[in-house]
């Protein structure tokens, strides 16, 4: 066992996969030094032919990722900020997502689009999003949102081995997290939620960094509310069964997600719960998300993105307090 930081868990996962499979390579802007550290150290091990500093060209980077994947490679494409998916939407949301379909299921697009996501640094509307719902809304893409170092490592390995394009958004606020990581290899399959904390009063489905806020909230609410915290870990595929099972037990549920509320992740999960467990609900499914607004910068960010007090409040309300 060793302690690893969140970013280091990610880079270790990529390194292990690069060592295992010479079809894996990293492409993106500044991936050799890696501003968010998740690909740091790789160039020293694998050289600049496999850790490629690319031009400031999101279309070309994402497009070349799709093309190289279709031609037999397994590129890991670093978008830098996850927000930059907007700059290559044709390539990621349309091409990567649909080429397997357009090729009649004969040509896969095995690749990873990684990006640092979320708020916490006041960087304003164009550097603070988690574009999760846009990815979920475009079938053909998978979506991973690791909430801690252990998960990040195991999920990144699964993402690289997956035969589909996988978006892997890691959260800025998880960067300082440290965790024990086993020496032996492990993989966390895509599509397996984890109950991060068992409880009986209310089901809390939380994503990405919000999992950590939910855990903190649950701790503070101990004695008052027994919260069951579920981290889906991957939103596509979504382990709805684990969620439904919990809801059938608690009869109450709140979904906490940092992406923008409207047509967001929470609405989708909510509706799936309504479709499968309506009769088990003692109260409406509720949600806590980023407000329907651009993400404000600097000191105003906290009024747009859910913070601990709102998370506590949302859980209490969902629990009927």
């Amino acid at each position, binding site marked *: 066992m060793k302690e690893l930081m969140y970013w280091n868990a990610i880079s270790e996962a990529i390194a292990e996969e690069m060592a295992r499979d010479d079809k894996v390579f990293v492409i993106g802007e500044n991936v050799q030094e890696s501003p968010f550290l998740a690909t740091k150290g790789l160039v020293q091990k694998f050289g600049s032919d496999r850790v490629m500093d690319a031009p400031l060209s999101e279309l*070309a980077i994402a497009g070349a990722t799709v093309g190289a994947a*279709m031609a037999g490679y397994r590129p890991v494409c670093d978008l830098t900020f996850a927000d930059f998916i907007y700059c290559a939407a044709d390539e990621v949301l349309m091409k990567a997502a649909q080429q*397997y379909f357009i090729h009649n299921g004969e040509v896969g697009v095995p690749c990873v689009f990684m990006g640092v996501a979320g708020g916490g640094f006041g960087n304003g509307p164009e550097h603070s999003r988690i574009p999760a719902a846009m990815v979920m809304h475009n*079938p053909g893409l998978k979506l991973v949102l690791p909430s801690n170092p252990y998960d990040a490592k195991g999920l990144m390995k699964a993402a690289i081995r997956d035969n589909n394009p996988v978006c892997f958004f890691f959260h800025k606020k998880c960067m300082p997290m440290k965790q024990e990581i086993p020496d032996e290899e492990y993989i966390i399959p895509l599509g397996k939620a984890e109950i991060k904390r068992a409880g009986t009063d209310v089901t809390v489905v939380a994503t990405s960094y919000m999992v950590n806020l939910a855990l903190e909230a649950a701790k503070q609410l101990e004695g008052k509310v027994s919260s069951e915290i579920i981290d889906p870990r991957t939103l596509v595929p979504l382990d709805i069964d684990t969620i439904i099972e919990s809801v059938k037990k608690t009869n109450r549920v709140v979904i906490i997600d940092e992406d923008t509320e409207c047509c967001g992740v929470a609405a989708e999960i909510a509706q799936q719960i309504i479709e499968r467990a309506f009769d088990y609900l003692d109260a409406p499914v509720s949600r806590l998300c980023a407000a329907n607004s651009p993400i404000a910068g600097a000191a105003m960010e906290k009024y747009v993105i859910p913070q601990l007090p709102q998370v506590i409040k949302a859980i209490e309300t969902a629990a009927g307090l």
Partner: protein
Amino acid sequence: MKKLSKQDLLHLYRSLIRTRKFDQLNIRLAAEGKLLTFYHSAHGHEAVGTGAAAVVRDDDYLFIHHRGHGLPYSIVRGIDPKSCVAEHMGKSTGWGGGITGFHAVDKEMGILSSAGTIGSGFVLSAGYGLAAKKNGRGQIAICFSGDGGVQRGQFHEAINLCAAWKLPVVFVVENNGMAWFTPNRDTTAVENVADLAKAYKVPAEIVDGMDILAVYRATEKAVELARNGGGPSLIECKTFRYRSHSEGRPDVSHFEPRSKEEIAAWMERDPIKLFEEKLVKDKVLTATLIETIAREADEEAVAAEKFSFDSPFPDPARLPHMVYAP
């Protein structure tokens, strides 16, 4: 420079004829409402795709231009064009299994995708080229596009990347001076795409797109350069579309009918006519052979129509399994 045998020349000629016959078949089927999606005729463009695609190896990668929806690029490479017709009729025997609408794909022959969003081919081809460079098997990628497609940002980002990293990608631009209803003299100050390419330090050549051998030779040179680590090239083929942008649409420039004289002038330089005249003069073709080739192509088209018509629709139960690879 490969010496073209009589057999090679006849293969090119036959491919041109078959391309045109199948193009005509698709045009007629579209008019009869039998195609379940739109169709962009290759009429006038046949020499470009046929001449350039004739050069590449079976394991090279091709991104096709939409004219003829794959016909010029695939027929010359030995792909059976009935799978194109069947796809447009939505049949399971189509090259996309009947589920793609109009997309041309042939995994075995490296025809990876065609663009619903014009211009996407540039960056995807950069990826094929990157893979080719990495695997060291001497593969190359060839990316066809129109002069309109060149106006998208993807062109800039892709050609810049290919030039910087010396990726083995050949860009073949089918410049017909128009994008849909819009003449490009009003949407760009760049007369020759080749000039643009040179600014990126990419070797570029302008060729007569109505002359199949000119296209062939230019492509041959570019492909050789790419295979030998020399990086990308661009070939600008000056060509013309004889028909409207897509079947059933008006044939206008901006909003006024296109000049009949201009079309007639280009028809004088029809790529099949030119090549046929040359081959007759060089005694490669005879009147009988011309007739035989035409008849065989006609018969093939008739058979393809029947084949497509008789083929079953895909099983819709397949659809949910086509979204994610196992």
